[in-house]
């Protein structure tokens, strides 16, 4: 090496080593000969397409697709977990075990909301439930559980002869198509008896 920096006896050994390495390297590297490198320079020829220029975008695209797929799978799993949690919450209140919504209806989270707002004996809850399914436990009849909005028209239930009797004039809270057998909570019976007393 012609570095000119080596001075003194301490560097003579390094110089000797470097000279030895230079000789070894030159002997071997000088045996490397190209196979296709042209002997004459051709200016203006396009630069050879590099092998990584094609693979790098493809590899990046694959990596991006895998990342998106992983994120999508993760988000769908989170959605599934939330739905399961909602189902557990719907099933957890006492007295409603086994009264989950019909899974085929696709409204797994609606029963819990409906049940929460209508299971309490508050009068407001009774007022909002004045559509035929008032106070009915969720899932007692599956068609009604799929339409929890108060203004929704419930499907026509199977009427019993007792339902066809004429309603009392003051019984404004009693839904005509709802069978009384489907209204067991004590809150509603209390309300009904209160109406009878007020009328009397």
């Amino acid at each position, binding site marked *: *090496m*012609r*570095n*000119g*920096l*080596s001075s003194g006896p301490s560097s003579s050994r*390094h110089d000797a*080593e*470097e000279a030895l*390495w*230079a000789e*070894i*390297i*030159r002997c*071997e*590297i*000088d045996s*490397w*000969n*190209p*196979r*296709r*490198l*042209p*002997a*004459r*320079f051709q*200016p203006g*020829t396009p*630069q*050879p397409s*590099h*092998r*990584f220029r094609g*693979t*790098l975008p493809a*590899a*990046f695209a*694959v*990596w991006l697709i895998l990342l998106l797929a992983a994120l999508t799978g993760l988000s769908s799993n989170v959605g599934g977990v939330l739905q399961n949690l909602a189902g557990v919450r719907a099933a957890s209140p006492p007295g409603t075990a086994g009264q989950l919504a019909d899974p085929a209806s696709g409204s797994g989270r609606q029963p819990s909301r409906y049940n929460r707002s209508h299971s309490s004996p508050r009068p407001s809850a009774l007022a909002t439930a004045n559509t035929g399914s008032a106070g009915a436990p969720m899932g007692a009849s599956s068609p009604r559980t799929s339409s929890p909005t108060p203004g929704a028209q419930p499907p026509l239930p199977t009427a019993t002869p007792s339902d066809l009797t004429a309603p009392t004039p003051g019984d404004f809270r009693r839904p005509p198509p709802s069978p009384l057998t489907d209204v067991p909570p004590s809150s509603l019976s209390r309300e009904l008896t209160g109406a009878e007393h007020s009328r009397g």
Partner: protein
Amino acid sequence: MSGKKPQTATDFELLYERFRLPVYRLIRGMVLDSGAAEELAQEAFQKAYATRHKFRGDLSASAWLHGIAVNVASSHLRRRRVARFFAGRPRPPGGLEAEEDRRQGSVERALAALSPGLRAVVLLSLYAHLSAEEVALILGTSPETVSSRLHAATEVMAAALASSHPAEAG
């Protein structure tokens, strides 16, 4: 010719004839892949031809060309590293040709034990016979750093050769 500025195409053709093999061999020593080295050598000469008007007199033509070759090889190594990262699989440098090449030389094994930076120092100093000042200008460092790196590189190469040939080393 090695110290003259290549002003015309004829000058550059002479430069190419003179440095075709040294540049190819230096690049091959850097990337340790014969097939890629041929493409990269052509790329280096094309770059040198395109930027020949920027060539100043602070470096010899040999140092200027070898500097371009080292830059091209270093860029290739960086791209290869990124490509391997995205591909997710460790792969030996090169394909079948590199596999053939690996059989032949102990120097190649010793160079493979070095980092690209140390490889550049070794090849520019010990093979291209550039001075420490020229190597420092090419690599953007000081001549003292070049000397210390060269010393460290020779130790690493000796250790690599000793581990690959324990009988000869003993």
